[in-house]
Every structure is written in C-alpha cells, then in structure tokens.
C-alpha cells in the first residue's frame, strides 16, 4: 500500500512524473515490445494511417475502461457495462428513428438511460449490500432485456451524415471527434485521480473502506457515484459505437464487460482494489487494440488469435505479479 502513502504527501512535479511512470512500467514495456515485434513482422503496422485506425478501434473500449478503472479501484466490479452500452445505443436510436427526437437530445437520453442502470447498480451495492459481482450480473441481464424491448429486437440503421462523420473525419489529419473525446476523458479522469483529493479518497476506499470511513471519507456516497459514472461511460460507449457502425443493434457489446475488465487488469490494476491508474488502463486498452490489429495485419488464423490474446492477458498479469513481489 506504499503508493497510497506516497500519494498523500506533497511532492514536486518531477518526482510525480517519475512515480507515475514507475506505476505503469510493466504494461508500458509490454506495449512497446508488442509494437516492436509487430513492426518487425509486417510493414503495414507502423504507418500513421494504421496507428490512427487503432485509435479509432479502441475508442469505445477505452471510454468504458475508464469507468471500469474507478469501479475496480474501489474493489468492485461491473459486469453490466456491455449491456448498458446496448441500452444506450438502442434508447438513442429508437428516440431518433421512431420518435423523431433530434440526435443531440437522443444522445443525451441514451447516456442518461445507461446512467440510470449504473445508479441501480449503486443502490444494490451500497444500500442493499449486494456484492458488486452479483448486483451487476443481474443488471447485465436486465439491461440486455431492456435493450431488446426498445425495438423488439430489431436494429436501427442509417443516422444523419454528420453523426457518423464524428468517427470518420480526422481533423488535422489526426483525430476524429470520437478519438478526441476519448483522449479528453482520459486526461480529465487521470488528472482528477492522481492530483485531486477526490482521487486520493478513492484510492483510500479501495485500500480498505472501513479505514476510509473512519478517516472521514464518505465511502458510501463515493461508491454510489462511481457506479453511476461507470454507467455513464458505458452510455458514452453506446453513442460512440453507433457513430462508428452508423447503426444500433440490441446485441451490441455482448461480452464486452470482459474485454473492459481485461484492459484494466492488463493496465496493472488489482481486482482487490486500491491499485491501478488511468494511465495504466489506457495502456492496457492499447495493448488489446494493437494486438488484435497486428494479428489481423499479419493474417494469423482466427483460431490462433484467440489463443494468443488469452496468453497475452495471462502473461501481462504474471509480469505484474513478479514485479510487485520483487518491488
């Protein structure tokens, strides 16, 4: 628990940067190694266009993983994010296509719908004492049902041109609006978590919520809002996915909660809480994205891809365990 103690002290900027880098060394080295191997194996990997493609591809996962990082930091888990993503994309789509609600309002409503799911998770966990694994497992099923009910299981295709262009047009030849949103969200959350008292309190809750409570931190309120926020990021995910696919599908995001959790864990977070960071998570997200992208570029058979991805997840966590034991 040394990192927390360190965080509590004030320290100059330089050592803060060094400390931050230390925390994410394992995943960062993994990512750089992966990039090195891939650029040796195929010419098409290390091109500007391909790296921008990877950013497009990881945006939805990345935004959801940011919310998940907070939940995992306080020692919880959220299995409902994939289904809440579907609720968001379907509520948005149905309001726009069937009720004629303007897209910006429909987008907000989609995010709100997922936030309500997150709020319900919070109530179950905080007020009713249901373990987060079970509470969000229940929500996963409920939310998937709700997503299907909105249009009786059918998909919605074809939004306004400007909407799908949010993820297509690259401003300055670099960033699409959706990728810019992901980077912005990561920066804001990363700064809040590392340099704001709120962040320190969240780490303290993850270290032991009873201790945090005795220290005067309102752990219950924080926990509640973190589940709402995780729902909100899933809601963002639903909207982002709709721009990318130019459609909404109630079976969207099936199983994505596991990808999201994998990204956070690869990024160095501990499932028992108190350890992890937004920077680590972003790297975890990039490892998953780069790996999938690279395996496709090399043209490895889909069956082998499944094995490789599983091995990388296991390997990343083993490395981290070894590092922690030595450190």
């Amino acid at each position: 628990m040394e990192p927390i103690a360190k965080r509590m002290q004030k320290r100059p900027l330089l050592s803060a940067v060094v400390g931050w880098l230390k925390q994410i060394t394992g995943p960062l080295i993994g990512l750089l190694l992966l990039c090195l191997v891939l650029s040796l194996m195929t010419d098409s990997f290390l091109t500007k266009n391909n790296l921008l493609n990877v950013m497009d591809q990881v945006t939805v996962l990345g935004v959801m993983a940011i919310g998940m990082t907070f939940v995992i930091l306080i020692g919880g888990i959220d299995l409902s994010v994939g289904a809440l993503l579907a609720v968001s994309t379907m509520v948005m789509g149905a309001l726009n296509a069937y009720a004629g609600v303007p897209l910006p309002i429909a987008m907000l409503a989609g995010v709100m719908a997922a936030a309500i799911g997150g709020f319900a998770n919070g109530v179950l966990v905080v007020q009713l004492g249901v373990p987060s694994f079970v509470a969000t497992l229940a929500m996963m099923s409920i939310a998937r049902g709700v997503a299907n009910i909105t249009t009786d299981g059918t998909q919605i295709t074809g939004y306004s041109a400007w909407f799908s262009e949010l993820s297509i047009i690259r401003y300055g030849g670099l960033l699409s609006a959706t990728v810019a949103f992901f980077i912005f969200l990561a920066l804001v959350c990363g700064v809040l978590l590392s340099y704001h008292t709120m962040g320190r309190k969240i780490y303290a809750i993850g270290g032991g919520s009873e201790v945090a409570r005795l220290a005067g931190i309102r752990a219950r309120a924080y926990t509640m809002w973190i589940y709402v926020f995780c729902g909100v990021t899933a809601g963002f995910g639903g909207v982002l996915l709709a721009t990318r696919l130019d459609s909404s599908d109630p079976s969207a995001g099936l199983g994505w909660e596991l990808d999201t959790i994998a990204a956070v864990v690869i990024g160095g977070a501990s499932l028992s809480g108190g350890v992890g960071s937004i920077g680590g998570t972003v790297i975890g997200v990039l490892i998953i994205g780069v790996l999938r992208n690279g395996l496709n570029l090399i043209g490895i058979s889909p069956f082998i891809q499944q094995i490789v991805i599983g091995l990388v997840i296991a390997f990343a966590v083993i490395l981290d365990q070894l590092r922690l034991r030595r450190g």
Partner: protein
Amino acid sequence: MFNRRTLIAATAAFGLSVSATALMAQNEQVTIGLALPSLTLDFFDQIRGAASAHAEDLGIELIIVDANGDSARQVDQVQDMISRGIDALVYVPAGATAAAVPVRAAQRAGIPVVTLDRNPPNAPGDTFIASDSVAGARNIGEYLVEMTGGTAKVAILQGQIGTTPEIARDQGLMEAFEGHPGMEIVAAQPANWLQDQGFNIAQDMLQANPDITVFVGRSDAPAMGAAQAIKVANIDHKIWVVGFDGLPVALEAVRDGSLDATATQQTNLMGRLSIDSALALLQGEELPAEQLLDVTLTTSENVQGFIENHP
C-alpha cells in the same frame, strides 16, 4: 429443379473460373480478405473451408478473420485488412445490422467487395451471393403441408431477429402456408441459430403445448436441438422436424431419421464462387448485383447423394 437461375449461376461460375485462370497467368500475387461473422456456426466454417481450398488451388493468398458475432469487431478487422493491402474483400456481415461501414471503407480504398449471405441494404456489395432462401423455405413449407395433410400445430425456432436469412425464410414458409388455415403456428421464439438454445426452447414449447406436431428450425442447428428435445420428452405422436442449411451433420440426421427434411444450400459452391467473383471484379468484369443459388429440399429419399458429395 434446373431453372433458368441455376443455368445463369453455372455459366457465371464457369466464366469466372476462366477469368480466374487468366488472372493467375499474369503471375501476380493476389490477396483476398474473407471477413466471416462467426466460426462457431458450422455453415460459415464450411464456407471458410471451401474458400480456402479453392484459393489454394488458384495460388491466391486468402486472409481470414472471424468477428465472433460482433459487428464492431468486424469493422475493425476489415479496416485492418485494408491497411494490410488486400486486393479484394469477401464480406459476410456479422450481427443483425449487416453494417454498411465495411463496404464503404473498402470502396473508399478502391477495393471491390463481394457480399455473401447478407447484404447491407444501404451499401450493397459490388455483387451479392446468397441462397434463394425464400424459395428454399417455400419448398420446406410445401413439404410440411403435404406430409401433415394441411393440419398441424407448428412451432418455429427463429434465427436472430432482423437478419436477412430470418426474414427471407419466414417469408417463404408463410407463402407455403397461405391457403392452408389448418397450419396453425402455436409458438415462435428466437434460438439464434444455436443448437443448445433450440433444445431448451423446444423443450419449453413442448411443455406449454404438448400437442405440437411440427418443429421448424430456421437453420439446422436449432432443428437438431428440437429433435433431441423430442427424444427426451417421450412424445406419443409423430412430430415433424425440419431444418435449413444442409450441414453435413444435419444430412446424417436426415439419413438416420431424427430430422425429416432440410434445405441444402450449395455452401461449397458459395465459398468457391465468392473467390471467383472477387477475382472477376478485380479484372474489371461486371457481375450481376445478385447471384442467387438454388436450395434443394432434402429428405431421406435424396440425402445420400448430398452426403457423398456436398454441393
């Protein structure tokens, strides 16, 4: 059976293989990308097998990606294959949406697109290859009307709601049942093309309606699940079970009597034709917007031929 469309398809297939040979003669390494929706479904795995064998015969490099039923994943994969520099794309859409995005992305990159099995309505491929599902399902329906004498309590194990095959097969079945008010549909639920879901849903349907006399599986896998559910339930009357696709395992089930009929798609031909069509598009040839292949009603009478030599 051999109608005009079969002839057209056969002629097209012949013409295509000639042009494929011509292209090979130029001695260029051609790379084709094949984007499949889900290899856990045997139908797509059979297409993969046929396409890769054919590509190997022609000396073409074939890159295969599997989206695992996830349309977002599939968009990523198609994007990656374009970065890798494929010359042509064979796109079998995943998920209900049949996303238009991969077709648009490929066409922006100047890569010809063959769509297979499902076609995005708002951005169709340069040519679309599929089975004539409506006619196939109509044949199945007519067979059921004949076998049951026009009176039956029918339970349907639907595919994924909203997908092209689900819609087309529903349409064909309803056309066959039209004018036969005795063909009463007592239950319909999505089994999402899966055998275990078909089993469970059929079991529940039999619990709710023990007098069901027909199970229609929108594909073979749920039909085989239903056959198993009937076996377990110890029913005292004949229940007809039909599937669709003509998967090798289902053909054996038809031979052994646990399935009464299926509609055999020309899966191997589809795999080969998709490669040939991609090559023809690369040569700048014009192909018809739709290439529909015939589906054959398969019962114990004609199943042996299909088992020995799958079309």
